[in-house]
């Protein structure tokens, strides 16, 4: 008997050669090198030569546990044999031949794969192996966390599950984690919204699934569903509205281990209605990856600078004034906030404040007004693992200064998670507490108190710095005109005030008890709670407001609770290779929101900006409660390479009519890994998968009946009452239903050097609960209907190519592409379009139109006669045709990105090129700039050379020259013609570049440290391709469904940062 001891080192390659790397987007290189000890016993008993030899073996874990379901694959040249270990961890392989060098690989879910090379078999049956496999932390395994916090082998899923590693997110250093997902997963559309660092961002997965409902995915952090409702959004109203963020800023990227995206209904079916638009699962780091009885302290610090980018290219030939003349008096200057004045000749001209200043171009107003923003973030974490328990505790602090003076965001908090196992009982605890404070969030989209609007309207010869500090010695605004619209931007930043605070506590307790080896019960209690308080005021002295200012103060408390109970079986061999497992469970979901608000106008005393100092105050309260009860099951079957999964769920919604408030919906998925004999040798792996699934959904609370409320004012003791609804309620609502089919394949080529996945999906939402804009002549703005139908068909693909690999150098390329074809199928009888939004200018709409993709940009065109000649009015001004045409599409349908990662020794470099195509955007800034004379297109006609040729309404010929003193009116008309300002919003951007450096171990060790790494990151460095003049194509005003309108919003920024990570 001989004993061989084989020392083994398993690096990336081992994993790559296994099929399990499939579908994990793992960029960069593995940081750790794993060493294994293999003990191989080899018996040398002689056997008959004619008898093919037999190999048996046992696979155990490090702790000696016998491992079942381990795949054992023996290969030599083209010959390949497979076996699987039984429940006792043993396997048996026949028909082997002596004197051949075999490769034997072992792979098992949750364990590091192992490969033995040059194994020789002795003749006969005495060949036996004992193999120990090392348990993997989740980060390195092919295990994904899926619905209900259940871990699954990625191979078994009949639908697409994709992950992004925490490391790939943290290097981006963005305040909002959503931004960091851009360009990383096919089918996931991240829209940048120009509402500041802490504003809400938009993510949609596989297109728009609901016509007017929430189309953003459900976020689940460590198993806890998070309320990500946006509090406020920018609106086209006068004040524009403030976007108070959607709460996702609470997530500290440094805490994240990985993000898993469940795109389809099948993946999400077990989360119920709220998952009908996909699920994003965030898993935070845990102590499980440490060795037993060890601990680790890690500190991360990062600093990022945001630099504003000025895309404007205005005319700088003519300055403030009217009729081609510069202002002659202060009064004159105050009445003409536009650039229709004289030629900028350097002469002294009076301005808004009565001062004479040279009449010269001011080209740097954007750079002068917007400051460099910065974000400083720090995280300290402690990880520990004992015999039975592991935990991670972290605390973090982030401070952000936004690009507008005096605005910023701060976040501090801690998070804790632990996993404990005593015999049959395991207990997992998650707890986190975060305080977020924001200051002076800006009103965007409107035209007063909106600094972005003022910057746009500022005549070409006014230097924004001359407006500083924005108020006089009495504190009153120094206005640009009598109406205070636009508002002096420094008055906004120095005097108008906003602050808000969100405190979030979430936690979960999960207790699992294994009755037997195959039977367990699990209970979970999950809570997501936040309170929110907000104060804003506009002091005495503002020009636009009711004289005397105004104030608003509000607070809300929001909680979401889930109680869940599951009884299930672990995977069991039922008969031969046939295995099954499953569970049945129930969930109770409660949501409660309460709010109170006081607002009022006219401060009595100056400089006392409190509610008590208001002369008129109005209190109001809000209350909203809903409940969903659910029962569900999950069943999984496995036969050799075939996996089948069924789920079913029934939800009862409190928001629907009692007699029709529940729906059962099923899902089924299948996956099959093709045997290696079925494809050519250069194909190293192939898997087919398919699924069908449905998800249901309810309505918003109180959508069923008409109700009446008392007015806040009474008329001298006479109470006033009216219908509270501005939306027509609907007492016949039924649950909506979304159905999806998905099919795809995953292929590995050339020893998995190239990994390719392809997925097709087809999802239709029927009986959609739609809140649609209706004719105001009905008495209501909107109605709730139950008749919508919308479909999404799409293709998603990603290809990962390991271009180069040597001992020191690695180059990975990942390309992703997705195409989504959305179509509004039906809107209910008699309704041909839904209006989702109207621009501030009033001329552009975002509509859902039957037969077209969701979110069409609609508006008027020039009035033309039958022969296509322009029709002008008597003054020679163009006319709009008053008909609403479809002018573009507000949502991108093609998204592509290319990522390159290089590593060389301790350096890692990566860059990401991100692009989107197929959308348009209506640009208010370009419309307004034509109206106010800043646009370069308004140069024609200033000196009387503008000739108008066409016909008039009566059909007569118009051939006239526009008097230069009237060109403002001429261009004013042009500004109102929608088709002029709808642009192709396609772009290609250099989204990210990062360079990382891990300080060599010998230096680190000398300092008594474990690891030290440094990185530098730049985001949004260059736009390589765009078609939108004067703006970034990614400038949507809101994060809601009305995509395709850019109002006067924040300019875009470029971020450059550095990051240092030290582990003790």
């Amino acid at each position: 008997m001989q004993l061989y001891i084989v020392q083994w080192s398993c690096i990336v390659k081992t994993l790559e050669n296994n099929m399990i790397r499939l579908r994990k987007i793992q960029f960069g290189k593995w940081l750790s090198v794993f060493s294994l000890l293999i003990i191989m016993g080899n018996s040398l008993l002689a056997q008959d030569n004619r008898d093919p030899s037999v190999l048996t073996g046992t696979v155990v874990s490090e702790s000696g546990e016998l491992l079942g379901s381990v795949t054992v694959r023996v290969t030599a040249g083209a010959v390949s044999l497979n076996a699987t270990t039984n429940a006792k961890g043993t396997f048996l392989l026949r028909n082997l031949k002596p004197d051949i060098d075999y490769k034997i690989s072992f792979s098992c879910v949750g364990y590091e794969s192992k490969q033995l090379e040059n194994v020789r078999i002795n003749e006969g049956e005495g060949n036996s192996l004992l193999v120990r496999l090392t348990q993997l932390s989740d980060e390195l395994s092919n295990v994904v966390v899926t619905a209900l916090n259940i871990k699954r082998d990625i191979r078994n899923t009949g639908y697409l599950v994709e992950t992004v590693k925490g490391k790939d997110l943290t290097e981006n250093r963005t305040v909002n984690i959503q931004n960091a997902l851009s360009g990383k997963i096919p089918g996931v559309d991240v829209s940048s919204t120009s509402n500041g660092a802490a504003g809400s961002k938009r993510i949609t997965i596989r297109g728009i699934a609901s016509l007017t409902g929430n189309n953003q995915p459900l976020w689940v952090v460590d198993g806890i569903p998070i309320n990500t409702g946006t509090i406020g959004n920018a609106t086209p109203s006068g004040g524009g509205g403030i976007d108070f963020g959607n709460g996702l800023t609470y997530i500290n990227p440094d805490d994240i281990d990985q993000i898993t995206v469940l795109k389809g209904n099948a993946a999400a079916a077990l989360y119920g209605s709220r998952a009908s638009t996909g699920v994003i699962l965030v898993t935070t780091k845990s102590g499980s990856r440490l060795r037993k009885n060890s601990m680790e302290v890690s500190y991360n610090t990062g600093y990022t600078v945001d630099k504003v980018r000025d895309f404007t290219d205005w005319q700088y030939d003519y300055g403030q004034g009217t009729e081609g003349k510069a202002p002659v008096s202060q009064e004159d200057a105050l009445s003409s906030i536009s650039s229709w004045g004289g030629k900028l000749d350097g002469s002294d001209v009076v301005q808004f404040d009565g001062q004479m200043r040279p009449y010269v171009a001011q080209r740097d107003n954007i750079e002068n007004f917007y400051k460099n923003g910065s974000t400083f973030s720090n995280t300290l974490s402690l990880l520990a693992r004992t015999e039975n328990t592991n935990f991670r505790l972290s605390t973090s602090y982030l401070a952000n200064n936004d690009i507008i003076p005096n605005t910023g965001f701060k976040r501090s908090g801690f998070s804790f998670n632990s996993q404990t196992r005593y015999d049959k009982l395991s207990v997992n605890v998650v707890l986190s507490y975060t305080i977020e404070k924001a200051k002076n969030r800006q009103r965007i989209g409107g035209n007063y108190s909106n600094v972005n609007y003022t910057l746009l309207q500022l005549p070409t010869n006014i230097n924004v710095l001359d407006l500083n500090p924005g108020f006089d010695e009495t504190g009153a605004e120094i206005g640009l005109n009598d109406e205070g619209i636009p508002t002096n931007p420094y008055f906004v930043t120095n005097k108008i005030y906003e602050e808000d605070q969100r405190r979030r506590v979430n936690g979960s307790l999960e207790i699992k008890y294994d009755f037997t080896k195959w039977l367990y019960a699990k209970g979970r209690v999950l809570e997501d709670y936040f309170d929110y308080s907000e104060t804003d005021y506009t002091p005495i002295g503002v020009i636009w407001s009711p004289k005397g200012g105004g104030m608003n103060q509000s607070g809300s408390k929001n909680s979401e609770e889930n109680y869940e109970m599951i009884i299930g079986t672990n995977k069991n061999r039922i008969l031969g290779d046939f295995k099954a497992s499953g569970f049945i469970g129930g969930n109770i979901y409660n949501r409660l929101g309460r709010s109170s608000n006081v607002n009022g106008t006219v401060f009595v005393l100056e400089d006392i900006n409190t509610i008590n100092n208001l002369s008129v105050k109005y209190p109001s309260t809000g209350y909203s409660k809903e409940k969903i009860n659910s029962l569900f099951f999950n069943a999984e079957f496995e036969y050799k390479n075939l996996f089948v999964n069924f789920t079913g769920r029934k939800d009862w919604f409190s928001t629907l009519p009692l007699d029709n408030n529940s729906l059962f919906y099923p899902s089924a998925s299948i996956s099959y890994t093709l045997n290696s004999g079925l494809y050519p040798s250069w194909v190293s792996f192939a898997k087919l998968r398919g699924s069908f699934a449905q998800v249901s959904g309810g309505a918003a609370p109180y959508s069923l009946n008409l109700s009446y409320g008392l007015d806040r004012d009474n008329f001298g003791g006479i109470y006033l009452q009216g219908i509270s609804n501005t939306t027509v309620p609907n007492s016949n609502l039924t649950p909506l239903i979304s159905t999806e089919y998905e099919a795809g394949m995953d292929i590995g080529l050339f020893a998995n050097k190239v990994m390719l996945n392809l997925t097709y999906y087809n999802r239709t939402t029927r009986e959609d609960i739609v809140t649609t804009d209706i004719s105001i002549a009905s008495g209501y703005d909107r109605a709730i209907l139950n008749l919508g139908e919308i479909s999404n068909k799409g293709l998603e693909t990603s290809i990962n190519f390991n271009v180069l690999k040597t001992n020191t150098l690695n180059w990975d390329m990942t390309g992703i592409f997705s195409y989504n074809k959305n179509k509004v199928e039906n809107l209910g009888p008699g309704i041909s379009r839904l209006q989702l939004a109207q621009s501030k200018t009033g001329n552009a709409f975002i509509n859902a139109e039957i037969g077209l993709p969701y979110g069409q940009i609609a508006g008027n065109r020039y009035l033309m006669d039958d022969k296509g000649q322009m029709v002008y009015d008597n003054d020679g001004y163009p006319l709009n045709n008053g008909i609403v045409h479809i002018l573009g599409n507000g949502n991108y349908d093609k998204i592509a990105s290319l990522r390159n990662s290089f590593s060389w020794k301790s350096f890692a470099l990566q860059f990401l090129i991100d692009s989107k195509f197929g959308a348009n955007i209506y640009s208010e800034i370009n419309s307004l700039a034509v109206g106010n004379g800043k646009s370069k297109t308004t140069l024609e006609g200033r000196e009387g050379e503008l000739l108008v040729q066409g016909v008039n309404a009566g059909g007569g010929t118009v051939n006239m020259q526009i008097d230069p003193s009237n060109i403002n009116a001429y261009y004013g008309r042009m500004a109102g013609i929608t088709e002029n300002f709808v642009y192709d919003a396609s772009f290609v951007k250099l989204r990210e570049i990062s360079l990382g450096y891990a300080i060599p171990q010998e230096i680190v060790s000398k300092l008594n440290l474990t690891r030290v790494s440094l990185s530098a990151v730049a985001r949004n460095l260059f736009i390589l391709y765009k078609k939108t003049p004067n703006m970034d194509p990614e400038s949507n005003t809101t994060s809601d469904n009305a995509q395709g309108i850019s109002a006067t919003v924040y300019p875009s920024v470029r971020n450059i940062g550095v990051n240092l990570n030290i582990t003790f």
Partner: protein
Amino acid sequence: MKINKTIYGSLLGLVILISACSKNFEDINTSPDQVEEPTLDFLLPKIQLTLSDNAYYTNVTIIGQLMYQVSNHGTNFSTLTIGSNKEYHFEYQYATAIKSLVNFIDKTKESEELINYNSIGRILKAYAFHSITDLYGDIPYFNAGKGYIDRTFQPEYDDQKLVYEDMLNELKDAAEKFNPAQRLPGNTDLIYGGSIEKWQKMAYSLMLRLALRINKADPENSAKWISTAINGGLFESNADNFTVFYKPNTYYATISNGQPTPFIYYTSWKLAAPFVDYLKNNNDPRIYIYSALPKTGAVDGDNTASNQFGLPPFVPANEIPKPIEQYSVSPPSTFGKYDAPFIHQSYSEVQLMLAEIAIRELVPEVSKADAGSYYETGVKAAMEQLTIYGGNYVITDAEVNKYLMDNTLNTANVELALEQINTQYWLETHYNFYETYSNWRRTGYPKFDEAEFVIPRRMTYPAKETNINSENVQKAISRQGADLITTRVWWDK
């Protein structure tokens, strides 16, 4: 076995728990903040307060300027009717008055006890609709305001002719259906305190207005309805006026009058030169109630007649002859305050209409010989009604008589008389500019110089309607003419 029992027990418990918990869903889904049955006596006053838009957007900023009564420093005529201000009256009236009235009428239609509430609702509904149709032409009428009741989300636009026919029928029927034996609103009827007699007079006075308005388009029906109105009984004094009083507050409050807001907010809003000049040139004793210089600090501005100057309309900023603060505004104690009453229809207007009916000999009930006295009663009532601003604003009989002496109705020349009558109507309807505008379009008086600025004949439909309700808007356009400000409404053709 024990394990199995535990499992089955738990599963059963789970199912029972989930289904039992679904029983109280109706309570969960009932908002604790709202009620599902309204109180009629709370609904009625709110409806009355919202008849005047509560805000100035369409009425003052557009129509007031077009009627040369107010002027905004820097307004460009060619852009005046572009944008959302022209849409406000349409959108606000449907969303508040029409919606509430349709609901109010629906809630009161079944019960005999509520017949008086129902009649008041129907009269007010006719009032609310006529101001919309006069401004925009063909409008949703028969199916309007029924988003909840009938789930009509995109109501058709109705021919103005049919709208008028129905409004007139409604007024007659509602006036006749009052029943003193049934329940009446008391002080919650902010207009007439539940007086059936006054409501009936109002119904017939409004009928007279509508009947005269369609005189050009449909003279036969016009005459018929004028007679019906006169026989039904019209306003007999200023005590019968259809006036809504307001309380001090800010412009967006339901209980205050939002019309004077521009004068309270902005220094650029002034009375227009043609209006002030007419008052001044004709030594109108009303001038000090209509016009004053802006406040300086807390001190009310000078309201001496000779110091009043109206702002020349549509003149570029650098071409106005005087500094902006030297132009007159609506006085902060009368028209220029948030609690200024809003006169929807007055005894004076009725008398002036009768003067016109007399001079044009439209119906046998009114004799041409009485034209002068109708005119004089109308002018006198217009001056006397200004006491609604308080005891400081009394125009004496002597002042009235002197004015009438200087402005006697020229009964010999019908055209001149019509000009005199309707110029008085123009002065009297100050701030009810919708009415000023309709009457001006109908009569052409007072004459404005339209050489440079041709005054529009209607307002275009809201942009949102052209988008959302486009099919019905297109039908209206094909019936009425292009959706342009130059297109005339049916009664104006």
